[in-house]
């Protein structure tokens, strides 16, 4: 993005406005990166082992699944909806992946990935259709499917569990292996973040999601097919939850019907900490993914710092509140600044 290319009538004001806006847009991600760096630094000073390659690997591994789910959640949040069913979808697909591989250990991993994502997408489609065609608020729909999908998972497993022992090593290696020193799972998450990030930034469907969340009525007037787009957001969120479920099985090896219970709130928290507005129109998947990394790192750091694990949850909650309060204050400031400049335009 070059600033020189624009034929700005009033260069000074134009550039200043643009710079401020750019900063405001990027500052969010910068803020999380700053907080993350500070956290790692402080922890490292107290316990240097925290920054050993091995430990950092673990950080990346811990955050990978949450980052992937947060990416999907971001798409949905941007459109002024919410997907609370991701934890249950993850549970369902995690079990499906495990069941498939332990019954047919020869199955190609790509087939497992495809099936898991397909199953997740189907769940997402159900959510999306209920929200758009059924005109049921997303909060209600996904709260309902949170129960339904979880119940189905329980019915399906009927109390059984998949053990790492029954899973092929090639599959488990996704969860533990690495490529060029970077854990495979983290690489997968990175690819997901970058691809979705690009689509959101540089492709029409992505931009239209922002439009829908920013002003649904105007989006309709602009010819955006809102229902279809919102549906797609849910489908992608479901598919990514499916991918997450498959990775969950690969990572932990042991899955039962409770896999991913309670993830929904962590995932929404990660996205919101990452600057995604809960009322739509604002945020990026980069921020959301960073939010997931930050939440994961706090948990690890507290363990390493030998802080009672009891504080973990409180810290996560406090961080979320800080993040939204910060966003609100910055938003108010920015609004005021923008209005000031615009109001006395002679």
């Amino acid at each position: 993005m070059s600033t020189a290319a624009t034929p700005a009538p009033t260069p000074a004001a134009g550039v200043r406005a643009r710079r401020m806006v750019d900063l405001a847009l990027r500052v969010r991600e910068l803020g999380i990166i700053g907080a993350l760096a500070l956290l790692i630094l402080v922890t490292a000073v107290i316990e240097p082992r925290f920054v050993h390659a091995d430990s950092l690997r673990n950080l990346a591994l811990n955050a990978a699944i949450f980052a992937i789910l947060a990416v999907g959640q971001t798409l949905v949040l941007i459109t002024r909806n919410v997907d609370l069913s991701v934890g249950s979808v993850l549970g369902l697909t995690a079990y499906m992946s495990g069941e498939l591989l332990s019954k047919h250990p020869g199955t190609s991993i790509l087939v497992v990935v495809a099936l898991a994502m397909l199953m997740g997408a189907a769940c997402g489609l159900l959510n999306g259709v209920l929200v758009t065609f059924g005109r049921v608020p997303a909060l209600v729909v996904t709260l309902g499917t949170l129960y339904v999908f979880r119940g189905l998972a329980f019915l399906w497993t009927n109390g059984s569990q998949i053990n790492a022992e029954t899973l092929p090593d090639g599959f488990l290696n996704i969860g533990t292996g690495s490529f060029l020193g970077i854990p495979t799972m983290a690489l997968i998450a990175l690819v997901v973040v970058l691809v979705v990030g690009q689509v959101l930034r540089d492709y029409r469907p992505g931009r239209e999601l922002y439009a829908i969340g920013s002003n649904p009525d105007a989006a309709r007037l602009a010819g955006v097919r809102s229902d279809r787009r919102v549906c797609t957001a849910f489908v992608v969120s479901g598919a990514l939850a499916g991918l997450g479920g498959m990775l969950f099985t690969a990572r932990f090896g042991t899955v039962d019907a409770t896999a991913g219970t309670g993830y929904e709130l962590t995932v929404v928290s990660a996205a919101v900490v990452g600057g995604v507005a809960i009322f739509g129109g604002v945020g990026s998947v980069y921020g959301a993914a960073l939010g997931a990394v930050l939440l994961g790192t706090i948990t690890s750091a507290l363990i390493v710092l030998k802080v009672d694990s009891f504080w973990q949850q409180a810290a996560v909650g406090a961080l979320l509140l800080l993040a939204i309060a910060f966003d609100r204050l910055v938003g108010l400031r920015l609004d005021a600044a923008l209005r000031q400049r615009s109001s006395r335009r002679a």
Partner: protein
Amino acid sequence: GSTKNDSSTSSGSGGASTSASADTGKANPNAPYKKGMKVVQIPKQLGNPYEDIEDNGTKKAVEEVGGTFVRKGPTDAGASTQVPIIQSSTQTKPDAIVIAGNDPDAVAPALKQAAARGIKVVAQDSDVAPDARKVFINQASSEEIGRDEVRLLGQQIGYKGQIAILSATANATNQNTWIKFMKDELTKPKYKDMKLVKVAYGDDDDQKSFQQTQGLIQAYPKLAGIISPTTVGIAAAGRYLSKSPQKGKIKLTGLGTPNQMRKFVKDGTVEAFELWNPADVGYLGGYATAALVSGQITGAEGETFKAGHLGTRKIGANGEVILGPPTRFNKANIDKFDF
């Protein structure tokens, strides 16, 4: 008609009080098994494979004596989640309830209500408040398990270094009893160089246990060994260690099932661990229940009952029946077991 049912319920509870007074009467060791007895089994939570094995043992025993077996359980192991299930089971008037308690006290009032209606209550695996049940089937002497775990780890690490415990939930009765005896064992001079640095809780949640293991190792770099007296915990810890550079260096032992642990024993992550046969725990529980229902025992100390292929067993102090010493599993014998 609800009124009809109401009256039948009240007459039912009236009947219960008479049978309750019969309880205090004498046991008749030679009484025949009650025909068509109905037993409800309430596990800590559905979806725990260890409990599945155990409950299948109970089922086998109950069916051997010609009874019917129903299993109902909560979907999570919260303290009070068993209460509604106990209450609904009570309403269906079974002869007995066999329970693995999530919380000894939270379930007690509901169990006492059941007992008041003439339902025999047996706890197995994890005890409930003693006055809320007649018999408790203990896998092994809690003291024996606790001390033996420490002995086992001590041998593996040469009685030297920092150790940690990875437990299940902080309220779990059996866990806490074992840990108490572990700590007591550690005070012996033999273990003066072994130091317990942390008791971590993985909540019998695979992922949480996994992360707790990871955290323990980061927080205590000099850690020499981990005891995890829970099947979920030891499997998660094993999985973490098997892929970490500390594999084989940090010793891991505890209570686990051979099927879950086979891989880690074979790849050298784990030298040895222990467990009783959970199917036998359930089986013993099933026979104790049948004996109780049929009036062969009342739960008093010293009474004996027949327990199928486990032979004749005796009720100890506090109504406890102990299955026996746990089995140690290692590379040499693990392939002989399948559960």
